[in-house]
């Protein structure tokens, strides 16, 4: 009974965190990408002296400002939730996250107080070059500010550069550079920011397409599309490249996530990549039902993605749960035994320290350190608990990849017709352009679902499951704040959409 209540609280806290993060991610990618697009528009203005480009830059700057204003501080809510709902986790990672998040806060404050002000207020008050410099600083600063939070997220996916201190119950940073330059943190930063560039390019294409359909602000819309489609095309390529790197990292640091998003239950040599499929909803880890009702597989591609080698072995969910000695894969079953021993030694250490028995404390600590890397497994009740929701992860991943393949085609078509100056005649493409930002939104959210749902049950990969990371709260307390946030987010979103649509209606040259 108590366990059921605990799990309910955990699930409400997860739902609340997911809702807040998804809401936050409406605004962030637009800030990341639109800031650079504005810098491009203004650079062309400064270079050519053509006042039309100034109009373009100023118009997108207003939409950037609206997005920024509505989105500001939505990330802070996540920090509130850490302290209230996830207090054990929050305590344990304080030493790792404290410095990066403080840097982010300071950078954001100075950036907003100085360069944002020059960018918005300084058009006729400072020199053209200083204004342009400020616009670029906003773009660079916004993206750098995202670095720290993504490094923190990367650390949760692949904890490195730290040691657990059993006296303080904290993970303490040992090597700042290992945390900053961990391969997971780097691919997290590059993949996430470039997806923001892509999303913002789609936003510009969407709004400009609408103008072209309405035959309003035609030249400004065409100019906007020219720059956005080039930036979007380049970003699409970079997103694919960094996505491949992220999948490679998953294969080596979070193989269960890779197996889940590919719906791979049985490990294989020369494993194929599922291009499209319908997951079997009745499939369980320990049964022999087929994982898919329908699937189209590209032979050998998953092995290339995972190991850069077409004949290599990719472990499946069953291998990772029950182990595969032949392929040298340790299963969750064995890790649970090691993890339980680590937890037991931690308890013995605590007891010995309290009783003043230094020798026993040292012995327990030595043994704890031997199995420390499996600590989190010690809290799992069964090996199957190490498996994330497979269907959710699978569909999110494949939706993201399919849309990721569509975006460069959209940008290429827009670029070609913009260069030919025949965009206004391509009604079908303009309609596609209008809906493209929504596709970008879906792709971005799916990316986060893969990253976060795909690594369940961990708050910190292999070290801390969400059931131990949580606070001792009732489900009711979290439910109340969940619905409060739902109401606030809905009101704010309606406000943003209304203000944004009104400004788009007015347009860059007024009605």
């Amino acid at each position, binding site marked *: 009974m108590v366990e059921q209540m605990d799990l309910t609280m955990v699930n409400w806290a997860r739902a609340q965190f997911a809702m807040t993060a998804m809401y936050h991610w409406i605004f962030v990618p637009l800030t990341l990408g639109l800031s650079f697009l504005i810098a491009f528009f203004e650079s062309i203005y400064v270079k050519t002296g053509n006042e039309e480009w100034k109009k373009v830059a100023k118009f997108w700057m*207003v939409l950037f*400002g*609206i997005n920024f*204003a*509505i989105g*500001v*501080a939505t990330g*802070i*809510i996540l920090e*509130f*939730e850490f*302290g*209230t*709902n996830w*207090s*054990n986790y*929050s*305590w*344990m990672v304080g030493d790792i996250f404290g410095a990066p998040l403080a840097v982010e806060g300071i950078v954001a404050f100075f950036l907003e107080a100085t360069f944002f*002000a020059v960018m*918005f*207020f*300084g058009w006729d*008050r400072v020199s053209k070059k200083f204004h342009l410099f400020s616009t670029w600083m906003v773009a660079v600063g916004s993206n750098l500010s995202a670095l720290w939070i993504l490094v923190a997220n990367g650390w949760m996916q692949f904890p490195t550069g730290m040691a657990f201190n*059993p*006296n*303080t*119950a*904290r993970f303490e940073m040992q090597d700042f550079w290992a945390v900053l330059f961990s391969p997971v943190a780097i691919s997290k930063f590059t993949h996430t920011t470039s997806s923001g560039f892509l999303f913002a390019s789609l936003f510009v294409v969407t709004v400009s397409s609408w103008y072209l359909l309405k035959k309003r602000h035609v030249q400004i819309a065409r100019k906007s599309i020219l720059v956005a489609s080039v930036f979007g095309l380049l970003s699409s390529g970079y997103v694919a490249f960094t996505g491949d790197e992220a999948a490679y990292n998953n294969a080596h640091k979070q193989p269960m996530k890779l197996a889940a998003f590919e719906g791979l239950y049985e490990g294989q040599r020369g494993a194929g990549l599922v291009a499209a499929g319908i997951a079997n909803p009745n499939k369980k880890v320990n049964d022999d039902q087929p994982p898919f009702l329908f699937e189209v597989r590209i032979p050998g591609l998953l092995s290339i993605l995972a190991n850069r080698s077409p004949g290599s072995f990719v472990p499946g969910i069953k291998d990772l749960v029950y182990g595969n000695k032949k392929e040298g894969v340790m299963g969750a079953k064995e890790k649970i035994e090691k993890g*339980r021993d680590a*937890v*037991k030694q*931690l*308890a013995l250490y*605590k007891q010995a320290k309290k009783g003043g028995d230094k020798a026993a404390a040292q012995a327990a600590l030595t043994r704890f350190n031997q199995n420390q890397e499996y600590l989190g497994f*010690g*809290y799992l*009740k069964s090996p199957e608990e190490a498996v994330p929701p497979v269907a959710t992860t699978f569909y999110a991943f494949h939706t993201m990849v399919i849309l990721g393949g569509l975006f460069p085609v959209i940008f290429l078509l827009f670029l070609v017709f913009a260069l030919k100056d025949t965009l206004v005649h391509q009604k079908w493409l303009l309609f596609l352009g209008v809906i493209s930002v929504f596709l970008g939104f879906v792709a971005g959210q799916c990316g986060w679902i893969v990253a976060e749902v795909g690594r369940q049950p961990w708050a910190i990969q292999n070290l801390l499951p969400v*059931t*131990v990371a949580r*606070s*001792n*709260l009732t489900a009711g307390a979290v439910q*109340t*704040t969940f619905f*409060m946030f739902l109401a*606030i987010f809905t009101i*704010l979103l309606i*406000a943003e959409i209304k*203000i944004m649509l009104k*400004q788009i209606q007015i347009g860059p040259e007024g009605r």
Partner: protein
Amino acid sequence: MNGSYPGSIVRFYVEGFRSMTVGRVLWKIILLKLFVLFVILKLFFFPNYLNTHFNTDEERANHVLDMMTRSAESHNLE
């Protein structure tokens, strides 16, 4: 310019805020949102659990350590 340098910075901000059109509505939203977040939500609904339940870092560390070991004991070590 020399003596009024800080003054011109202040004027820059004041005139900038005055000349805002869409920005005025946005600032109202920002201020209202910050009030709701920090004064209402943070104060009444999102207290820091460990800070409100324990007085010292040592107590907090012991609590977290208890949670780490006790949950395992109830699950696995009996």
